[in-house]
C-alpha cells in the first residue's frame, strides 16, 4: 500500500488554519504546530473588517476598483496576478466564512453589512462587530476542530518550530521542534511544510501593535536555511497607537475621522494639565501643515508628521515620544454614540476617559508588508494566478510553502485597511491547495529519508540550547530585546536616512555579538521561557539586519518606506494635464524604472545579500501616481 502523505503546518492563525482545512479536505493528514493554543493566535486582534466587493450599498463598487485600490495603495510594488485573484475570490471567501457560522454584522434586512475603510471610496469591508479577526479565526478554528475530532488533523500546541529538515537535494522533508514544556527537541518528518507564523512587529520591541509571539523568528529560521525574504523594508506604522510598556494598542483611525484633533503644547516643558493649556499655546501641527486635510491625512502622512514634530521640532509632550489626540472638544453624546466601543478600549487599558482627557498616542509598528518570498504561476488567460499550480505560495525551498503575514505576496509597499484578513484567508486557502498539488506530483512519499541525518539536526538544535543555558554572564534576553526595539524604532522606523540606517547596522552587529552570550536566570529544564525568548531574540536581531540592509539599499520613497532625501513631491495644486504635474509624472516613472522592483534578501555568511526582481504590473500598469488629494 502506498504510504499516505503527511503535511506539517506551522502556525494556527487564519492563514495556517485555512491551509490545514484545504489539505485535510483533500484527504491528507496534517499536523499543526503552534507556540500556544491556536485559538489565541494574533489574527484575533484584527478589529475592523475584511474587504470583499459585495456592492450592496448602491455605489457600483467593482472588483476592478478593489484591485486598483490595493495596487495603488501599495505603490505598484505587489505582483498583480495574485492581487487580481485575491480580489476576485474575496466575495466567495466571505460566503464560505458565513457558512462556517461567522457572525458578520447585519443590515436591518438581515443581510451582511459592509462599511467604509481608509484609502478607498466605496464601502466594502465586511465586519463582525469590532472583532472581525476573532470571529473569522474562530470560524476556521471550529472547522479544523471538526477534522481534529475525525483524527485527520493533529495539533502540537506548545511546540516551537526550530528548523527545517532538508534532504540531500534541498527539499523540505519535515521540521525539528521543541516541546515548550519538557524542552525536548524532536524531528518530525513530513512530505511538505507550510509556514504561517504571522508578523514580525516584535522586532520593534514593545513599540508595536502585534502580539508578543509575533517575533518573526520562525520565518527567519527558514531564511537561514535558504528561504529568501522579499520587501522586508516595508513596514506599516499606524499613526495613533496608545502608549504602553508592554505593547502599544491600536487607537482606530475613526477617532480622527469623527473630529479628533492632534496637537502638542508649543512649549515642550509645559507642565500644565493639557485641559488647562489655552488654544494659543497649542500647536495643531496636522492642521497647520496640511490645511486641506487637517487631522484626516492618510495614515503614512500622519505617522510622518507626528514623527517630525517630536524628533525634528522637539515638541513631544513632556519631551517624550507622544502627542495628544483630543476628543474633549466634541459633544459627549455624539462621541459616545460614534466611538463608544473603541474609547472603551482606551479607558480599559489607560484608565483615563478620552471624553475627559486628551489621549496620548504615537505611531507604532503595525504590519509587515514584506516577508518570505513566494512564487505564483500566472494564468495567461485570466491574468490571475493559475489555480491548483504547485508553484503558488511556494518559497524558494522546494516543499516549503508560506502564507499569511509571513509571506510578502499581496500588499506591495503599503497595505490597505481590511486587506490583511483577506490576504491571510486567501493565501492560506491557496497555499493549502498548492500543497495538495505538490503532494500529488511527488514520486516518493515519506519514510525513505535518512533518519541519521535528521538526528544530527536534532543534536545541533540541542547544542544551541545547551550553549545558551551554560551562559550566566551578559545581558538578559529581555534587555537585549528592549535595546533592539529602541534601535529599530529610532533608526529604521517611520522616517529613515542612510546615515541612521548605517548606524543601525553597526548597532545590530554589536547586539548580535552580545546575543551570543546571554545571562540566563532560569536554569530549569521545564517550561523555560527565558531559553525560548533568548533564541527568538537572536533571530529577531538577524531579521532586523535583513530589514535594515533592505532599507539601506532602497534609495527612494515608496509607501511605508520613507527617505526624505529621495522624496518626489506632487506639485501643490497641480493635477494631471498641468505641465508641473506631468513633469512630476515623468520623474515618478523614471524613479519606477529604477526602483519598481521586489527586494530579495538571501542569507549569506557576512549578512544579507540583496538583489532585485521585476514586478508583474500587467493588470494595472504604473501610469498614475498614488494621490490622495
Amino acid at each position, binding site marked *: 500500500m502506498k504510504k499516505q502523505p503527511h503535511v506539517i503546518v506551522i502556525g494556527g492563525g487564519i492563514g495556517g488554519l485555512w491551509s490545514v482545512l484545504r489539505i485535510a479536505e483533500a484527504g491528507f493528514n496534517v499536523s499543526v504546530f503552534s507556540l500556544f*493554543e491556536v485559538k*489565541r493566535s494574533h489574527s484575533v*486582534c484584527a478589529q475592523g473588517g475584511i474587504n470583499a466587493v459585495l456592492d450592496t450599498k448602491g455605489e457600483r463598487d467593482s472588483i476592478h476598483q478593489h484591485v486598483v485600490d490595493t495596487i495603488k495603495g501599495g505603490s505598484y510594488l505587489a505582483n498583480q496576478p495574485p492581487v487580481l485573484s485575491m480580489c476576485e475570490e474575496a466575495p466567495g471567501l466571505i*460566503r464560505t466564512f458565513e*457558512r462556517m457560522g461567522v457572525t458578520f454584522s447585519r443590515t436591518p434586512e438581515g*443581510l451582511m453589512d459592509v462599511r467604509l475603510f481608509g484609502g478607498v471610496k466605496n464601502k466594502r469591508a465586511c465586519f463582525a462587530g469590532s472583532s472581525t479577526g476573532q470571529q473569522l479565526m474562530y470560524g476556521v478554528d471550529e472547522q479544523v476542530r*471538526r477534522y481534529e475530532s475525525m483524527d485527520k488533523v493533529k495539533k502540537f500546541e506548545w511546540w516551537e518550530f526550530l528548523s527545517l529538515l532538508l534532504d540531500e537535494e534541498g527539499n523540505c522533508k519535515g521540521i525539528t521542534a521543541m516541546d515548550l514544556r519538557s524542552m525536548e527537541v524532536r524531528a518530525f518528518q513530513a512530505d511538505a511544510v507550510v509556514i504561517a507564523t504571522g508578523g514580525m512587529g516584535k522586532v520593534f520591541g514593545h513599540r508595536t501593535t502585534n*502580539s508578543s509571539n509575533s517575533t518573526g523568528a520562525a520565518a527567519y529560521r527558514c531564511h537561514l536555511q535558504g528561504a529568501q525574504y522579499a520587501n522586508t523594508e516595508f513596514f506599516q506604522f499606524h499613526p495613533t497607537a496608545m502608549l504602553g510598556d508592554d505593547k502599544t494598542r491600536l487607537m482606530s483611525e475613526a477617532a480622527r475621522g469623527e473630529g479628533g484633533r492632534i496637537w502638542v503644547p508649543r512649549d515642550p516643558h509645559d507642565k500644565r494639565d493639557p485641559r488647562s493649556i489655552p488654544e494659543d499655546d497649542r500647536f495643531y501641527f496636522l492642521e497647520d501643515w496640511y490645511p486641506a486635510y487637517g487631522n484626516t491625512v492618510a495614515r503614512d502622512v500622519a505617522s510622518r508628521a507626528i514623527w517630525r514634530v517630536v524628533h525634528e521640532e522637539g515638541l513631544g509632550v513632556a519631551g517624550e515620544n507622544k502627542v495628544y489626540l483630543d476628543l474633549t472638544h466634541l459633544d459627549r453624546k455624539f462621541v459616545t454614540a460614534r466611538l463608544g466601543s473603541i474609547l472603551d478600549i482606551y479607558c480599559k487599558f489607560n484608565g483615563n476617559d478620552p471624553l475627559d482627557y486628551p489621549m496620548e498616542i504615537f505611531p507604532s509598528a503595525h504590519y509587515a508588508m514584506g516577508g518570505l518570498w513566494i512564487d505564483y504561476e500566472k494564468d495567461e488567460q485570466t491574468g490571475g494566478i493559475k489555480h491548483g499550480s504547485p508553484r503558488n505560495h511556494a518559497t524558494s525551498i522546494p516543499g516549503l510553502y508560506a502564507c499569511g503575514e509571513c509571506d510578502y505576496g499581496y500588499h506591495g509597499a503599503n497595505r490597505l485597511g481590511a486587506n490583511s484578513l483577506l490576504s491571510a484567508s486567501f493565501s492560506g486557502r491557496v497555499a493549502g491547495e498548492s500543497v495538495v498539488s505538490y503532494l500529488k506530483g511527488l514520486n516518493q512519499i515519506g519514510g525513505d529519508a535518512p533518519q541519521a541525518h535528521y538526528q544530527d539536526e536534532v543534536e545541533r538544535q540541542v547544542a544551541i540550547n545547551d550553549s545558551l543555558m551554560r551562559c550566566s554572564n551578559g545581558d538578559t534576553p*529581555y534587555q537585549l530585546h528592549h535595546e533592539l526595539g529602541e534601535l529599530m524604532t529610532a533608526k529604521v522606523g517611520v522616517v529613515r536616512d542612510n546615515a541612521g540606517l548605517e548606524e543601525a547596522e553597526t548597532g545590530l552587529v554589536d547586539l548580535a555579538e552580545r546575543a551570543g552570550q546571554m545571562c540566563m536566570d532560569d536554569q*530549569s529544564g521545564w517550561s523555560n521561557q527565558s531559553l525560548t525568548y533568548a533564541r527568538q531574540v537572536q533571530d529577531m536581531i538577524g531579521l532586523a539586519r535583513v530589514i535594515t540592509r533592505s532599507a539601506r539599499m532602497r534609495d527612494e520613497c515608496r509607501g511605508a518606506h520613507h527617505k526624505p532625501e529621495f522624496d518626489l513631491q506632487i506639485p501643490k495644486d497641480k493635477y494631471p494635464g498641468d505641465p508641473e504635474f506631468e513633469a512630476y509624472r515623468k520623474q515618478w516613472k523614471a524613479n519606477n524604472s529604477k526602483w519598481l522592483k521586489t527586494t530579495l534578501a538571501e542569507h549569506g555568511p557576512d549578512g544579507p545579500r540583496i538583489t532585485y526582481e521585476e514586478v508583474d504590473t500587467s493588470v494595472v500598469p504604473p501610469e498614475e501616481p498614488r494621490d490622495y488629494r
Partner: protein
Amino acid sequence: MTDSILIRIRRQKHPDSPSYWQDFAIPYKAGHNLVSALMAIRDNPVTADGKRVDPPAWEYNCMEEVCGACSMVINGRPRQACSTLIDELLKELGSETPITLEPLKKFPLVRDLMVDRSRIFDELKKVKAWIEIDGAWDVHERAPRISPSEWNESYLFSRCMSCGCCMEACPQFGPKQAFVGPAVLAQVRLKNIHPTGRYDKADRLHAIMSDGGLSDCGNAQNCVRVCPKEIPLTSAIGELGREVTGQLFKDILG
C-alpha cells in the same frame, strides 16, 4: 501615591513540586497592568528580600483582552492580567495590601502561573461546537438572513475566547468533576440557533444531556460575574434547560 508595588506570586517549578510564595517589589508606574508589571519583574527578577531568582512563568499574547491567554487568579478573582490595571487594584486594595497572583486552580498546573487548558478544547469537540459544512469552498449562495436582534444575541456568545475564567469560578467544574463548564454550554447555545447549525441541534443537546452535562450546573451564577466579556452565560444555560426538556420529550415520544 505609593512609590513601589508589592506583588506576591504563588510559584511552582513543576507540576509535581510543591508551591511557594515569592514577593516582588516593583517601582510604581502609572498605567501599569499586570502583564507589564510581570514584565518589569522579568527584567529584574529580584525578590523583595533581594534574592535573584528565575523569572516567573506566565502565559500572555495579545495583551488586548481578546486572545484569552493571560487568565490568572488576581486577589482571589479569575481575570485577564492584561486588562487588570494596577491603579485600579490599588484603589480597591489600598497601597499597603500586596497584589496576589495565583494560577487557575481548576486546570493542571504547568509552571508558576501557567496552566494547561486543553480540556476546554476537548469539551468543545464533545459538544460539536461547529457548523457542519460541505466544504470550505464557495457554493455561490448568499448568506442566510439573520435579523439584527438575533445577530446581537449571537455576537455576545461568539466573543468567548476560551479563557477559562468562568470554569475557574464555577463550583461544579474541576479536575475531578465531569461538568463541561459554562463557556462550552454557551457555545452549544450559539451553534443551536444558527440558521444551519440548528440542523445538528439534537446531537449537541444529547451531548449535554449525559454525565457532566447541563444538569451538573448548580446555578451558583459565579460564571457570569467573572466573565471578562460579559457573556450572558446563565441565560444561555437557562435556555438550554428548556431545550433539553423539549428534546427529552421528543426522544421519549420518538
